[in-house]
């Protein structure tokens, strides 16, 4: 679009035609205050704070609704404008209670800031203020009408942004009030966006109310540990007792891939950390019962038994199961531990998508995967299977926002009219389980059409749908775990012309676990076992035969051939409904946060730190790599990385070959966050000295591991500066995954929804308390036990 020249306060500026005056002013650093204007939401002109003088206009004009025009001369700093702002604040403060000392928003309240900058120093009010008692709309949302300034941001973000429309306006005039459309409570997705967007303290979070004040917290930007979308969440952390306690989760830092968005899990579901059932001490089975033990005792026992098994029956008798919730560094180190220390390829994890086939189909095509940001700007999106609104909330937000703001065309293929069909240009309803056939049809296989016909889907419709898709440039194709193997490959090969793809896994680091080679037959980066040597000298000893997958491990257990099983942050017993007696003779070691069904069978249970309690990196399902930052502390637990290294060390392995010792890795947790008083720093230094290392070098340094990953894993060679500054970096799929053309039969989708998150969800009070978690009738798939 052509550029338009305007003058603001005597400064000339140029902006594209169609820009709003308020945005044009902002672009040159002139602040025009406003409450109701919010970028990306519809215009209101309701708060009248952004009134400015425009030459040749008799009245003051709202900058938020005025589109700039050539030659416009604007004044934002005249006495009239200042008086107008002051008066608006006097008006809005008429009924606004002066309870800032107890208000949760105090300290980060836009009304406070504006009153400070533009308001009157004294109140003219003599009369009483209108009062209405506080209401609770849901376990997590409270509403205080007197504090509300009626900017309608919450109504708009709920309706336009989330497409939920749970909030409305009742009454008129001074009695206007924001109210839930469902009687007196909310029935919505409980995302809490209304709380986040509220400029004042009218909407407050039930999880954070009256706990502390914003300036009392440190704000740590990290990555949400629940679903696979990788939202950036800001955790408010306060020192309490022996360490840092997470008090609040929100979306202060809007620089992440999620922009304004955060769902219920990212915002509130950190409360499992303080669940009373959280494991805080290692457990060792003595006389048939798990009894608390010291870390030394537990680790020594594990090392001893692992060493025995390896030295007598060899690595083939040992199994390792990784997690899709631990960091890339831990997963990388775990498979390295299995392959180098245990000398076995018996390593697997809970697979939720056919990433190897995806990578295989994409081999040779650079830049063919879409990042989460691409979904927001793509001209067209094809969604096959999955229900992103419930399983990938951020993805759904990106698609919705793209359709709303940029007019993207959304094509949906699903067996069910999912919520996103409201935004869809075309919806193809297919019989349940026919997603693979749909992919084959879209890839050009006309014989697949027969399996797709329903009462709503005719042959003509199918053909028309395919034709429209073929006309789309730069399409982003998104598919869930319904597509595997050859159909997936066929689809990826069929759509060309700049098309990009996203394969949807289910957990926070499902993609990372796959990328880091938690497969019995694939090395990190989906490389074949024959290429182990490229990872370095020690890797030459890695066995060339593929190891046992999870199913084979259980079968071996039944035959008493599996001597040890090392389970890191996973719950295969519940998730795969494994017969508990299959592992009766196996020495099972489990690292987890809670006593899961698998941990219940274990000989040794080691309490692990969750992703909010450690540093590292996650790769979201699109392949966007982001850094985790340590936010909270939990006494007694250790990060998985440290546990793995300690076991290896106790087994007599030269840990320099396992964990890289990089003195430049400054961000390792030496325990500084817990303070010098705990003595942890000193212990670390003594330990290092004893091992002959430099005192400042830590073998538990995730950033040193990340450096190694960047060096050796194909596709992960991304800019470190970008990562360290907190940005998301898209990784390439440079691996090859040879021979991965058959559908992976071990894929088991997690079927999480907005209110479940595996084991963590079971122990999250908030997720269990919101009524939607109970109201939503679970479909057959969701009845499966939540695990992992």
């Amino acid at each position, binding site marked *: 679009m052509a550029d338009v020249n305007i003058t603001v306060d005597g400064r000339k500026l140029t902006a594209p035609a169609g820009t709003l005056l308020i945005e044009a002013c902002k672009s040159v650093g002139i602040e025009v205050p406003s409450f109701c204007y919010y970028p990306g939401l519809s215009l209101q002109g309701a708060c009248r704070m952004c009134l400015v003088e425009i030459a040749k206009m008799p009245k003051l004009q709202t900058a938020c609704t005025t589109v700039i025009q050539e030659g416009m001369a604007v004044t934002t700093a005249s006495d009239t404008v200042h008086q107008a702002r002051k008066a608006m604040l006097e008006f809005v403060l008429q009924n606004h209670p002066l*309870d*800032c*000392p*107890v208000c949760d928003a*105090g300290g980060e309240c836009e009304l406070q800031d504006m009153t400070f900058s533009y308001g009157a120093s004294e109140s003219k009010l003599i009369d009483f203020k209108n009062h209405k008692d506080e209401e609770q709309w849901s376990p997590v949302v409270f509403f205080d009408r007197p504090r509300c300034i009626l900017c309608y941001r919450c109504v708009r973000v709920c309706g336009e942004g989330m497409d939920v429309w749970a909030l409305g306006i009742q009454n008129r005039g001074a009695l206007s009030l924001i109210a839930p459309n469902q009687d007196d409570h909310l029935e919505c997705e409980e995302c809490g966006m209304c709380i986040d967007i509220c400029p004042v303290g009218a909407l407050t979070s039930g999880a954070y*109310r*009256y*706990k*502390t*004040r914003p*300036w*009392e917290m440190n704000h740590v930007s990290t990555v949400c540990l629940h679903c696979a979308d990788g939202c950036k969440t800001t955790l408010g952390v306060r020192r*309490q007792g022996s360490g840092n306690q997470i008090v609040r989760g929100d979306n202060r830092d809007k620089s992440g891939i999620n922009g304004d968005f955060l769902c219920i899990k990212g915002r509130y579901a950190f409360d499992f950390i303080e669940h009373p059932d959280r494991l805080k001490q290692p457990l060792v089975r003595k006389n048939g019962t798990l009894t608390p033990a010291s870390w030394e005792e537990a680790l020594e026992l594990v090392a001893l038994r692992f060493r025995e098994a390896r030295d007598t029956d060899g690595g083939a008798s040992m199994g390792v199961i990784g997690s899709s919730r631990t960091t890339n560094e831990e997963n990388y180190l775990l498979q390295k531990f299995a392959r180098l220390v245990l000398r076995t390829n018996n390593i697997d994890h809970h697979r939720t998508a056919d990433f190897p086939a995806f990578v295989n189909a994409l081999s040779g095509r650079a830049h063919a995967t879409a990042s989460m940001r691409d979904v927001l700007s793509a001209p067209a999106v094809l969604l096959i299977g999955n229900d992103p609104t419930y399983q990938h909330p951020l993805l759904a937000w990106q698609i919705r926002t793209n359709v709303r703001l940029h007019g993207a065309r959304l094509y949906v293929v699903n067996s069910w009219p999912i919520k996103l069909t409201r935004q869809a240009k075309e919806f193809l309803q297919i019989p349940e389980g026919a997603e693979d056939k749909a992919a084959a049809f879209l890839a050009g296989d006309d014989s697949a059409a027969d399996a797709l016909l329903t009462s709503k889907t005719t042959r003509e419709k199918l053909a028309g749908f395919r034709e429209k898709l073929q006309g789309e440039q730069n399409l982003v194709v998104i598919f869930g775990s319904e597509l595997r193997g050859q159909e997936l490959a066929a689809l990826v090969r069929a759509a060309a012309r700049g098309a990009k793809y996203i394969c949807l896994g289910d957990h926070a680091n499902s993609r990372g676990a796959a990328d880091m080679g938690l497969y019995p037959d694939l090395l990190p980066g989906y490389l074949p076992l024959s290429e182990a040597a490229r990872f370095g000298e020690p890797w030459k000893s890695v066995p060339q035969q593929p190891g046992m997958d999870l199913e084979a491990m259980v079968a071996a257990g039944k035959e008493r051939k599996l001597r040890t099983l090392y389970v890191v942050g996973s719950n295969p017993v519940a998730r795969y409904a494994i017969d508990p007696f299959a592992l009766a003779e196996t020495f099972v070691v489990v690292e987890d946060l809670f006593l899961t069904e698998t941990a219940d069978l274990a000989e040794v249970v080691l309490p692990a730190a969750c992703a909010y309690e450690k540093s590292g990196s996650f790769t979201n399902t699109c392949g966007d790599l982001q850094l985790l930052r340590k936010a909270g502390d939990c006494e007694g637990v250790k990060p998985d990385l440290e546990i793995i290294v300690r076991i290896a060390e106790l087994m007599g392995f030269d840990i320099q070959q396992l964990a890289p010792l990089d003195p430049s890795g400054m961000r390792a947790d030496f325990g500084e966050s817990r303070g010098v008083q705990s003595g942890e720093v000193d212990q670390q230094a003594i330990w290092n000295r004893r091992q002959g290392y430099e005192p400042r070098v830590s073998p538990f340094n995730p950033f040193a591991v990340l450096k190694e990953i960047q060096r050796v894993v194909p596709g992960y060679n991304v800019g470190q500066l970008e990562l360290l500054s907190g940005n998301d970096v898209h990784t390439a799929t440079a691996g090859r995954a040879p021979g991965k053309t058959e559908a992976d039969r071990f894929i088991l989708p997690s079927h999480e929804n907005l209110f479940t998150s595996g084991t963590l969800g079971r122990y999250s009070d908030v997720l269990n308390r919101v009524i939607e978690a109970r109201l939503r009738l679970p479909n057959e798939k969701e009845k499966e036990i939540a695990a992992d």
Partner: protein
Amino acid sequence: MNVFSGLAALAKGMAVTFKEMLSPTIVENYPDGPGPLRGAMFQERYRGVHVLQRDENGLEKCVACFLCAAACPSNCIYIEAADNTAEHRISGAERYAQVYNIDYNRCIFCGYCVEACPTDAITHGHGFEVATLNASSLVYRKEQMLAPRPALQGQNAVFSISGEEQLKAEREHGGVGRWIE
């Protein structure tokens, strides 16, 4: 001439001396004086150990807004907030201070916290005998600083308290603005 002016000056000086010799002494006889303060006397504005005030209903005035902690230049105030409920009501507003500690190792008695307090909950009392042999006993808890009863309007609980009442308060609550060993 010089002699006379010298004598006059001398007489003037000595007059002051003799006048003061005859007037009663104002030296404070602390700690051997009478009353619970043992002879110590204060200006009203004296900034001693803090007193946390109660409102006219006997509820704590502090609403745990953390402004004192924010204003404190020596970072000696630690607060943990909690929710009032209908059954368990501590303060007049929605929130109260579950934990309110002042670390007198660090406190410089600047009075910024009192300035910052929007509810006039924290005030300076006249407690001054804070010396101790154990530094950790200098972290005063809320219970040690809380006034036993509401002050009259515009008054500080410490100012309006009589000696007898203060003794009683000391017996029952461990003192007003004082420490307990």
